[in-house]
C-alpha cells in the first residue's frame, strides 16, 4: 500500500504539470497577449493570496485536521494593518505585528482543537464567523483606504525590471520554507505521523498537542502575510475582505493530492495545483467566462479532485477479479 502510494504521487504531480501546460496552451489560443512574460508573471498575482492560505492549510490537513477560518484571519489582519497605518506606525514594524496577530488567531484555533480536543471543522466554522465579526467590529462598515504607499509596496510593486511581482517572491519564499519544513525536518515527519495515526504518534512520544498548535499558528501567520499582500493589491481594509475565498484554497489543497484525512501528500503538489487553478481561472477570464461559471468550474474540479482516489479504487476493484480469474485459468 505504502509503496503504491509513493509511486502514485509523482505520477499525480506529472499529471498536474501536463494539465497546467494544456490549460496554458488553451489560454494562448484565446488571446495573442497571453504568452508574454509580463502577462504570465502578472497573472500569478491572482492566486498569491489564496496560495499563502493553501500552504498553511496543507500543513493543517497533513495532521488530519482542517481550518476554514483562514480567510477570516485575512480580514482581521487587514483591519489590524489599517489601525497601525492610521496610527502612523512604520511598515517594517507593522508587518511583523500583523503576522503575529494572524499567528495568534491560528494558535487560538489550535488550542481549541488540540488542547481541548474539539472537532476542528466545527471550531473553525465558529471562529470563521467570530474572526470576521471581530474584524467588522474593530474596523468600520466603511472600510479604510488611506494607506501610505510604503504599505502597498509588498502587494503592488514589481522588481527585476518591473516584471516579477514582489508578492510572487514572497510566495516563492513561503512555499520553499513550508516545503522544507514538511519534507526535510523532523517537525514535518511528526505532522504526517499524527495525520496517519494520532494514537501511534502519541505512544511514540510525539507532542501531539504542541505540533498541532504550532501548525495552526503557522497557518494563521501565513494568513497574516496574505493580509499584507491583500492591502497592497486592493488598497483597502474591511471586515468582508477575502470572504468566500476558502473554496479556492480547499480546492487547491485537495487537487494537489493532500489526503483530506491526513498523513499523505506533498507541498509540491499543492503548489502545482495552485498554478493549475490560477491558469484555468486566468484562461476563463480571457475567454470572458463570468464569475458564476468560474465558481461552477472550481466546484466541479474540487469534486473531481476528491473522487480521484475513489475512482482509482473502483478501477482496481474491477480489474482485480479479472486477474484472479486469469490466474486461476492458468493454474488449471
Amino acid at each position, binding site marked *: 500500500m505504502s509503496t503504491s502510494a509513493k509511486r502514485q504521487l509523482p505520477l499525480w504531480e506529472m499529471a498536474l504539470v501536463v494539465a497546467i501546460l494544456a490549460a496554458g496552451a488553451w489560454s494562448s489560443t484565446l488571446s495573442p497577449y497571453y504568452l508574454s512574460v509580463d502577462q504570465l508573471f502578472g497573472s500569478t498575482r491572482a492566486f498569491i493570496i489564496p496560495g499563502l492560505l493553501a500552504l498553511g492549510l496543507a500543513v493543517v490537513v497533513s495532521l488530519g485536521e482542517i481550518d476554514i477560518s483562514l480567510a477570516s484571519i485575512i480580514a482581521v489582519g487587514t483591519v489590524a494593518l489599517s489601525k497601525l497605518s492610521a496610527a502612523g506606525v512604520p511598515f517594517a514594524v507593522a508587518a511583523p505585528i500583523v503576522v503575529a496577530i494572524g499567528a495568534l488567531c491560528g494558535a487560538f484555533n489550535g488550542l*481549541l482543537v488540540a488542547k*481541548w*480536543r*474539539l472537532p476542528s471543522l466545527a471550531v473553525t*466554522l465558529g471562529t*470563521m*464567523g467570530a474572526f470576521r465579526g471581530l474584524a467588522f467590529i474593530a474596523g468600520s462598515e466603511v472600510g479604510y483606504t488611506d494607506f501610505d504607499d510604503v504599505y502597498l509596496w509588498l502587494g503592488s510593486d514589481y522588481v527585476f525590471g518591473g516584471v516579477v511581482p514582489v508578492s510572487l517572491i514572497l510566495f516563492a519564499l513561503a512555499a520553499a520554507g513550508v516545503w522544507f519544513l514538511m519534507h526535510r525536518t523532523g517537525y514535518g515527519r511528526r505532522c504526517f505521523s499524527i495525520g496517519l495515526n494520532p494514537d501511534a504518534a502519541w505512544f511514540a512520544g510525539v507532542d501531539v498537542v504542541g505540533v498541532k498548535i504550532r501548525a495552526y499558528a503557522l497557518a494563521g501567520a501565513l494568513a497574516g502575510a496574505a493580509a499584507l499582500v491583500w492591502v497592497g493589491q486592493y488598497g483597502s481594509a474591511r471586515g468582508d475582505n477575502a470572504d468566500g475565498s476558502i473554496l479556492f484554497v*480547499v480546492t487547491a489543497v485537495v487537487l494537489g493530492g493532500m489526503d483530506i484525512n491526513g498523513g499523505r501528500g506533498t507541498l509540491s503538489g499543492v503548489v502545482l495545483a495552485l498554478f493549475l487553478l490560477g491558469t484555468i481561472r486566468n484562461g476563463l477570464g480571457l475567454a470572458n467566462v463570468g464569475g*458564476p461559471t468560474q465558481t461552477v468550474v472550481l466546484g466541479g474540479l474540487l469534486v473531481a479532485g476528491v473522487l480521484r482516489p475513489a475512482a482509482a479504487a473502483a478501477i482496481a476493484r474491477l480489474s482485480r477479479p479479472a486477474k484472479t480469474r486469469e490466474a486461476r485459468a492458468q493454474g488449471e
Partner: protein
Amino acid sequence: MSEAPSVAARPGSRNLVEVVLRLREAGVVVFLVVLGLAFGLATDRFLSVQNLTTVASSAAILAIAACAQAIVLITRNLDVSVGSMMGLVAYLTADWAATHPGITPVEVVAIPLMIGTVLGAINGLLVAYGRVPALIATLGTMSLYRGFTYIYAHGQEVTSSRLPPWMLSSVDARIGGLPILILVSIAIVAVVAWLLHAYPFGRRLYAVGSNGVAAWFFGLRAERVVFFAYVACGFLCGIAGLLYAARVGTVTVVLANGWEMSSLASAVIGGVSVSGGSGTVVGAALGAVVLATIDNGLVLLRVPEFWRMFIQGAAIVAAVAVDALIAEAIRRSTGGRRR
C-alpha cells in the same frame, strides 16, 4: 412478561447517557428562557405578543433547515450546501410559477420537493458511494448549486408581482391567531422527530453516526443510511426553500446565502454533536429558536449587525465546548478510555 431482548438488555451507563442527553435539551430550553427574560428586561418590546410572533416566524424556516442539517450531522457527516440547495430550489420554483400562470398548488409543492430530493441525492451519492469527505463534497456542490442558480437566472430576479398571489398570501394566513408558517414548521419538525424516533431508519442514523464500524458488523449498510440521510436533508431543504421564497416574495440569486452556517449553528447549539450519533431534531429546532431570539434581541437593543456574526460564531464554539465537556463526563463515569 417477556420483553424484547434489545429492550431488556440495558446497562446502567446507557441510562446515564440518556439522562445527560435529556439535560442537554433541557439546558437549551433554560438558556432560551434566561435569554428571553434578559431581553425582556432590557427592552419593553421584546416580550410583546407581536414581537414573539416575529421571532417565531423567523425561526420557523431556520428550524426546518436545522432539522435537515441535524439528520446529516447525526450520521457523522455534514452538509454545507444547505443554503445553496434552498436558493436553487426557491429560484427554480419561483421562476416556474412566474412563467406558468395556471400553476396549481400541488405543483408548487411538488416541484421544490422533487428538486430538493434530487440535489440531496447528488450529495448523498458523492459522500456515501463516492467516499468523498462530507465537507469537500458539499463545499463543491455548494458552489455548483449556487453557480447554477446564477447561470440560470442571468442576473434576473423573480419579483413578487410575477408570482401567483395565493402563493404569497398562503404563508401569511393565520389559524387561531398563529401564522400558518409557524404551524407548518412545528408540524414538520414533529413529524421528522417522530419518524426518527419510531422507525428503524432513525435508529440506523444514530447507529452509523456513533460507530460506523460496529454498525457495519451489525449488518447495517452504512452507505445506504448515509445516502438516505442526504436525500432527507435535500427534501427538507426543498420545503425550506419553498417557504422562504413564498415568505420574501422577491426571489434573488443570493437567497439563503450563508444558511449553511446558521443551520449548523442552530443544530450545534441545540445539542447535535458534529462527531455524530447524538442529538435530536427537536434540539436543532430549539437551537434555531435560540438563534432567532438572539438576532431579534440584538436588533431591539440596536447592536450593530457585525456583532451577530461574532456572537453566532462564538456560540458555535461554546456549544461544541459544552458537548466535549459532557462527552468527557460520560466517558469518565462509564470508565471509557480517553481517545
